[in-house]
């Protein structure tokens, strides 16, 4: 991480020269660490009113937990929203919706503009679900925003609540190791996600999400960053046993997962992995896109 900082600053400087209106990314700042105990409690299901608003909340909830089946045109892989946001978007340290909704609109470096909440969700569809985002004013987007709004009931606007995002897991001083990561994967993850990261299906529908390959998140998704995946894994995996892996194990297994091919970054620049790396990945946390691992170029995409 330390080594990356000078390069990050240089690139950030270069970016700001090219684009004078740019600013610090408002969505990546000061994710509260895990030491701060989450206090916010989203409303209980029983408090949901039985009216048009309540129905829209229920619609949004259904889309959130069963996204792929209910929005086949928008989801291009085997993922649901609830795969990365556990407990129906409620769980602290699992990027809960109540930690996100009150923080928008916000400037995002990723697309260099102030994003509405709908635009932020569109990003999830484009990258994490490798699909085609529904229009911002579509009934589905409204339902997802209404569900998020309801979960955020009584949350302050523009305040970074403890439990928001995934807490940062500092990179171990010795870096990460693919071989150790593979061992962690086989011992802890393969039982659900499969020996080849392929996930598991019942009757043709994914129940356990695929972690790499054509049906997983693409090279533009935040989870392709090793640091982000390590944070998610450390605080959420294995299911029901969060915090059971060491920081080192979380980084190792995140690196192992994210050295595998997945769908191409939809922002691919002029068909060039190298140009895409320079423009979108060189200044994006710790990731392997466009680099060589064991002599093989990473980021070629699955073509699927």
């Amino acid at each position, binding site marked *: 991480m330390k080594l990356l900082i000078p390069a990050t600053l240089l690139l950030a400087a270069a970016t700001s020269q090219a684009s004078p209106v740019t600013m610090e990314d408002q969505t990546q700042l000061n994710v509260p660490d895990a030491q701060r105990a989450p206090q916010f409690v989203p409303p209980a299901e029983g408090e949901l009113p039985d009216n048009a608003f309540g129905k829209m909340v229920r619609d949004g909830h259904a889309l959130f937990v069963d996204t792929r089946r209910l929005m086949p045109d928008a989801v291009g892989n085997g993922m649901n929203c609830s795969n990365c946001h556990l407990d129906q978007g409620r769980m602290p340290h699992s990027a809960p919706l109540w930690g996100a909704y009150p923080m928008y609109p916000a400037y995002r470096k990723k697309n260099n503009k102030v994003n509405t909440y709908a635009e932020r969700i569109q990003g999830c569809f484009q990258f994490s679900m490798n699909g085609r985002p529904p229009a911002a004013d579509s009934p589905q987007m409204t339902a997802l925003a209404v569900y998020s709004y309801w979960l955020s009931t009584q949350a302050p606007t523009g305040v970074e609540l403890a439990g928001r995002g995934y807490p940062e897991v500092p990179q171990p001083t010795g870096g990460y190791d693919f071989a150790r990561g593979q061992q962690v994967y086989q011992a802890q993850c393969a*039982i659900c996600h499969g020996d080849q990261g392929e996930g598991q299906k019942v*009757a043709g529908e994914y129940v*356990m999400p695929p972690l790499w390959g054509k049906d997983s998140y693409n090279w533009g998704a935040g989870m392709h960053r090793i640091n982000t995946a390590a944070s998610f894994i450390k605080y959420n995996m294995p299911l*029901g*046993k969060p915090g059971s892996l060491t920081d080192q194990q979380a980084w190792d297994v995140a690196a192992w997962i994210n050295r595998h091919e997945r769908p191409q970054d939809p922002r691919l620049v002029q068909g060039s992995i190298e140009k895409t790396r320079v423009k979108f990945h060189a200044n994006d946390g710790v990731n392997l896109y466009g680099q060589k691992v064991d002599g093989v170029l990473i980021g070629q995409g699955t073509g699927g």
Partner: protein
Amino acid sequence: MTPFKRAVLGSLLALSWPAAQAADGQKVFTQGGADPAALACIACHGADGGGMAAAGFPRLAGLPAAYLGKQLRDWRTGSRRQAVMEPVAKALTEDEIKAVSTYLASLPQAPAGHLRRQQIANDPTERLALYGDWSRQIPGCVQCHGPGGAGLGEHFPPLTGQPASYLVAQLDAWRDGSRSNDPNQLMVGVAKAMTADEIKAVAEFFARSASQEVNP
């Protein structure tokens, strides 16, 4: 057939069959293994392998072969304890375990429920089954055991259609340590986090879902 005759027949078969001859899974199911202590499955688990709900004997039909084989081996090693099954499993040969597991997996399974993770669950039992209780690190049952609890892969057996008393006995066994053969100790933590009332309610939820559920 008396146990004596069966033992004689078994010995004759063992002597006359080439070593490479695979055990007959259907025969183990209906008549038992070569060792007379390896009782026939159908005596307790029913002619169709569908179990015997009144007695709490589980359904075996359609369960994954790898799962069934693992349970039989785990009774041999003691990581799963149960008075009737331990001697049966110890009396089966490895060939017989493989054969009967494969045979049972090939039998027609109970229809899967249609219950999906989609509706907001107001009822606390349905909520536990579908979504869990993450304040206690309890995942929803169907998150691993598949939609409707119909099972997923070789590690997550079906819950739907199993007798409630069997499901309760398994959760209790994880709590008291008499069952400790869950991969990565995924079930022991869940079982210990549940209350006795929740165990009973969720067991009845899945026992009921196969027989009653149409499409809620």
